[in-house]
């Protein structure tokens, strides 16, 4: 019985120690620029964004804010780029994006447009 108790303690201690935690974070701006070189705050027009990336995943505030969900393409050297995570035909958009990106989590590119429909701010949110 004592051995069983010890084993449970050991399993829990290992589980707590080994279980990783992935947090939502913004990717460094220079890394975003590297992956999306055409995106420049104050310069890139919404028209160009739509032409290059297609229909956005979500729009907010009457289209002033657009988001795209993308999968991180991984290889042995790490992430090399992003691919469109837009869904096929399944029940919910979030679920579809997650399935499409499995086993990684979908990443979100957020674009905020300012005067003249130019990109004012942007970020890439990743789960790491």
């Amino acid at each position, binding site marked *: 019985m004592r051995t069983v108790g010890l084993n449970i303690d050991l399993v829990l201690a290992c589980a707590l120690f080994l279980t990783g935690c992935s947090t939502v974070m913004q990717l460094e701006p220079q890394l975003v620029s590297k992956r999306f070189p055409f995106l420049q705050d104050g310069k890139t027009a919404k028209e160009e964004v739509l032409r290059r990336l297609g229909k956005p995943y979500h729009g907010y505030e009457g289209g002033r804010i657009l988001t795209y969900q993308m999968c991180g393409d991984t290889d042995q050297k790490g992430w090399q780029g992003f691919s469109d995570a837009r869904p096929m035909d399944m029940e919910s958009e979030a679920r579809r994006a997650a399935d499409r990106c499995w086993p990684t989590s979908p990443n979100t590119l957020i674009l*905020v447009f300012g005067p003249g429909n130019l990109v004012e701010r942007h970020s890439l949110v990743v789960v790491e």
Partner: protein
Amino acid sequence: MHCGMALLALTGLGLSGCIIIPTPSHGGVGVITKETVESFEPGKTTRADVLLRLGDPAKRLEEDRIFVYQWERIHAYVISMLPQTNYDLPRPHYLGLEFASDNRVRRVRVLDASFTFFDQYPKLEEWMAEKSESSHP
């Protein structure tokens, strides 16, 4: 009633040879940290700021007046006497954000899951109801 159901569930698990061991919350995917939540200042932070920081919410309610973000953390382990049947017990956490008509954050509410069998989402709905009353006096 909740206590009775929890007791019943625990008894069932006990009789089936399983035990549940609560732990401090840990692990999880897409965790929104306390520091991130604290960076959102009512009256100052905009909807755009939130989206740039966290991406799309899990739920958009009342024409984007409310955003709900959700993530899970492990709060317990189920340990069985049978081999290879032990597993972790994740519980959902919620972040609710209410925006004012100027697109700035009005209120923020985080619901950390405690060790319970019941989802905390109804509490978030109560919070939303409170906010609706204060928004429309």
